Each structure stands twice: as C-alpha cells, then as structure tokens.
C-alpha cells in the first residue's frame, strides 16, 4: 500500500473511484467494520486506517481498541459467568454477555453434555451477532458436528491484550509466536476479543511466553526475535 489514509468517525468516504473502475453503475460496494451508510453517503464509524480492495469493491477500517464488539464467525475466549435453563452466560468482553447453549458442544446430547462451572474458560465461535440480540457462541461447528479445537480450556493461563494485538496474533504471520515456537513448545488459543490463552510445561515458561507476547505489540519482526532471544537468555 502506497498511501495510508487515517479516518476518524464522521469522515465522509469517497468511494466513487472504485465504482468508476468497475465501469457499471450497479457495482455493489461491500462495507466492512468501521464504516456505515447514512443516506447516499458512506461515513466512518471508527477511527483507524482505511483499507480497500479495488477488485471486489470492499472497504473497511482497521483500528486498535480494547472493547470487543462481537462479529459473526470470530473465535473468542470467554469466561463462564452464569448458568441458566438452556445455556451458559459467557463474558467475552463485549457490552453484553454471550449465550452459550448447553448443547453447543461436540457430541453433546440432552443426557450427555459437558458441565461447565462458573469461572471456566471456553474457546468458542460467535454465531449470532447483531445490534438487537445478545451475542451467541458455540463450541463446535454446527455443520460438521466436530469441535474443531473449540471447547473448554483447562490449565495454563489467560491474559488480556488489545484487540489489535489479538488480531495480529491470529493472522499466523505474528513474528513473536514464530520466534517463541522455535524455542519453546506451547499451546495457545487466541480470541479476537483480546484474550489469549497460553499453556506450557511449567509456570516459568508460561510467564515468559505471556510477557513476550504482551511486549511484542509495538515491535517489528526483527525486534520481536531479538526480544524473545533476550528473554530466553535471561532464564
């Protein structure tokens, strides 16, 4: 990308250029997070860097914040805060607690279902997220019936970070995870709601991994590798 365009809420975004590229007037614009349509105009609803893809006419804003707003299909790490008739209430860091149905687990039936206690940590996927309903999450893929890695997380440690860092970690390019992975075996579950679960052999290494990830937020790939090396040497 050559020029970076920073927008703040209320900025009117001129999307006409991409429409002209398509040649036809009926080109469909696809608006991603941080953009909203008001009448004829498209304006930003979040502060961040504006991105667009010419070919698909997609526009979205990438921003860093700490408060999660649930969006469909995203993996999240949540804490069970309550239980009622048909499901659990799970805190995923958004304004409303998410609902996790009792049967939304791999192989769960009316007679045989996992029993989560209050304070348990789950890795789940958001299935319902809109402005009028509480978000709903599930610990399996409802199409295949398999857990696909979702479910209760036991052992290890969970920490909170900014949403930007969480998204960066999940993108698989994250240099800090790669640098750590070559030196220490560890398990991780990254929720885009800014919660990361880590498990290693011993508390010492868990603390090391947690600190390395937290420190990596504003570092370049090279600095990340250097920082991980220094932390490992210190141990």
């Amino acid at each position, binding site marked *: 990308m050559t020029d970076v365009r920073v927008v703040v809420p209320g900025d009117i975004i001129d999307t006409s250029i991409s429409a002209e590229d398509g040649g036809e007037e009926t080109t469909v614009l696809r608006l991603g997070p941080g953009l909203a349509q008001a009448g004829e105009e498209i304006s930003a609803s979040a502060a961040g860097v504006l991105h667009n893809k010419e070919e698909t006419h997609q526009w979205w804003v990438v921003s860093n914040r700490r408060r999660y707003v649930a969006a469909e299909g995203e993996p999240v790490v949540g804490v069970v805060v309550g239980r009622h008739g048909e499901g659990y209430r799970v805190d995923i860091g958004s304004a409303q607690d998410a609902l996790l149905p009792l049967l939304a687990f791999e192989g769960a039936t009316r007679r045989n279902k996992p029993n989560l206690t209050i304070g348990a940590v789950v890795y789940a996927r958001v299935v319902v997220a809109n402005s009028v309903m509480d978000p709903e999450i599930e610990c399996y893929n409802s199409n295949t019936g398999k857990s696909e890695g979702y479910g209760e997380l036991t052992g290890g440690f969970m920490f909170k970070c900014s949403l930007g860092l969480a998204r960066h970690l999940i993108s698989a390019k994250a240099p800090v995870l790669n640098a750590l992975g070559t030196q220490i075996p560890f398990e991780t579950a990254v929720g885009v709601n800014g919660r990361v679960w880590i498990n290693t052999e011993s508390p010492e290494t868990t603390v090391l991994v947690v*600190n390395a990830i937290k420190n990596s937020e504003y570092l370049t790939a090279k600095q990340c590798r250097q920082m991980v090396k220094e932390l490992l040497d210190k141990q």
Partner: protein
Amino acid sequence: MVVEIEPSKIETAFLLESLEKGIRVDGRGIYDYRTLQISCGPTHGLVEVQLGQTRILARVSCEVTRPFLDRPTEGIVQFNAELSSMAAPGFDSGGKSSPQEVAIARMLERVIRQSRAIDTEALCIIAGEKVWGVRIDIHFLDHGGNLVDAASIAAIAALKHFRRPDVTIDGEVAVIHDVKERNPVPLSIHHTPICVTFGFFGPGGLAVVDTNLLEEQTQVSSFTITLNSHREICALNKAGGIPLEPKQIQRCIQIALAKVDEINEKIQDALNAN
C-alpha cells in the same frame, strides 16, 4: 450498576501455583515494584502517574472560601477520587460516588491531611473570614491494580508541584495577586507520605508488593503502609482478610522503607525536571 468481573478459575489457579514457586504472572520478583513514571505539567498542579498499566491524573486547584466555624485559622483540603468506566468497564461513571471511590479519597485524606503533610494553617488568609480551599481531584485513567499507591504518589506529587496565587494582607484587606503580576507560591508541605501496599496470598500469607489487577482480585488480604522520607509511619491500613503476625508486619515495613526511598527519588526527579 457496577459489575466487577471475577477472574477465571485458570487465572487464579495459575497465579497461586506460580506464587508458590515465587513467580509472579507479570514476571516480577515478589518484592518488585512495577515501572513508575511521573510526569508533571504543563500547568502547575497537574501530574500524571503511570504504575505499570495503572494510570492516574491528579489535578490540584484552589479557591478562596470561608473556613469551618470550629477551625477559623485552617484552610480546607479536599480529596476527590473519580473512577470512571474509562479505567475499567465495570466502573460506573456519574451519579453518586462508589464505595471504592470513597475508600480511596478517605485513605488519601488520612495519608496526606491527617499526617499533617500539608500545613493547613498556612492556607489561612484572614482568620475566620477567608482561607484557601485546596481541592485534589484524582482521575483514574486505567485500572491495572494498586490504585491506592499510585493515587498517593500522584496526589503528593501534584501538591508539591502546585503553586497558588500570592496574597498580601494590609490590615483587614487581602489582595490576591494575579499570577502574571507576582510569581505564585508553592504550598507549605512538611513531608511526603507514600503508600506501599502488600497483597497476601494463600493460608501461609505470602506477601507480594504492588499487586496488579489480577493479584488484587485473588488476594486474601491487603495491607497498606504509609511512610515518609524521614522513616516515619504516617498511616497503616488493613481492612479485613487474614490476621498477620507482628513479624510479618515488621518485615513489610522494612521492605516498604526501601520502596519509599526509591519512589521519593522518582518524585523529586520529576519535579526537578519540570
């Protein structure tokens, strides 16, 4: 509605397990303070303190008021703590002050006013008529645990940084000079009390210094020691929790002494830098 979200089971279990081995979740030693940053200014009496993730802004302001009837020669010093939802999503902004806000403001009052760190008689302009009313507003910008220590550092640093307009008294008439006309004068502060809070964990009562948010939510008891640079104890605060042995308290005081010296130096550096 204040909803404080309890930490998850794996967080508390991990914290206690590692503490038994002498490891803290943020990689510090058990008697290590987090990185402390103090920045003063740009105006007098405005101080921002960062203690790890915790961030506090302290603002001192003053106005001329009538003294209390029973204390005609003493100025009024007021502390006001404000926990907004900016600090943590569980806090409620606006409305009446929460018990936690009151507890922090009350603690600061004990630490700074009742230890006579600030000379209230020097705030008198005309006895029984006019005194300075000094107000210290503490704004919590981010809650990373140990608000009391950070707030005490911010409050005393802001008071030391503050300058009030100069006053000359001619018989019954007091003239308050504009800050442009005559250099404003500092408040008379006798000593710098600083809080050091310990958290206790498990049945053994293992102590750690400067608890972060997770530790604060997991601890069985906390104990705040307030000392000044003359090695005098200004206040002790322990509300509930497990009982402590005299030996433990002695040990905490020894550790606190070293911490207070370090913090005092930092405050001095920050004030000198401005």
